[in-house]
């Protein structure tokens, strides 16, 4: 019963480098989300997906890209990392519809850009 799995847990990037944050879920949830948590700012939505092949921007999409080729996986790509992307990133999933309130979150990826 893995739930939502995020890798890596920690990463240090140099300015201008790129990386992919991995997220996979085994609950057959159709909705998936990427959030970032900055101190005192709560959870800000970066991108979301309502099914394989369907993605859309959230509040803070600049500097990020996503893809959803399968129900299970929703990777987040950072191109040209900047210090402003230093944050904790959470992936979440839910069934959507009437059950769409109850998100299952991964344990997060702590990213530092130096």
């Amino acid at each position, binding site marked *: 019963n893995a739930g*939502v799995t995020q890798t890596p847990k920690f990463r240090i990037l140099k300015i201008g480098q790129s990386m992919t944050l991995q997220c996979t879920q085994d609950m057959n949830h159709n*909705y998936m*989300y990427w*959030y970032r948590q900055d101190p*005192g*700012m*709560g*959870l800000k*939505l970066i991108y*979301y997906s*309502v099914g394989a092949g369907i993605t*859309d921007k*959230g509040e803070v999409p600049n500097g990020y890209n996503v893809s959803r080729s399968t129900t299970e996986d929703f990777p987040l790509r950072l191109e040209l990392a900047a210090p402003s992307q230093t944050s904790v990133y*959470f992936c*979440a999933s839910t069934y*959507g519809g009437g059950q*769409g*309130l*109850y*998100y*299952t*979150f*991964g*344990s*997060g990826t702590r990213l530092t850009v130096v």
Partner: protein
Amino acid sequence: DQQVKQNSPSLSVQEGRISILNCDYTNSMFDYFLWYKKYPAEGPTFLISISSIKDKNEDGRFTVFLNKSAKHLSLHIVPSQPGDSAVYFCAARAPPPTDSWGKLQFGAGTQVVVTP
């Protein structure tokens, strides 16, 4: 534009006493409100929710109160226990078609510390 606001970043309470966490919102179209709890190095987990048609929902030691006229909700934890020490996020949803996919919006969180 922050539609869900938690104005108290931290709260310290003695074990056995009541913890009261507050949350204000600006969007009158929100139809569900939720509280999530987060421990260090873990993702948030769902705690309790309330529909906008109710004014109270109780689950064990946790009770959420909703005051729609004031656009305010609160979470009461009675009695508080050391294991309740965590960050608590208030969240809200605007239903379709207001928000096409009914995404949750989160507040900034309140760090609760329960002392022995």
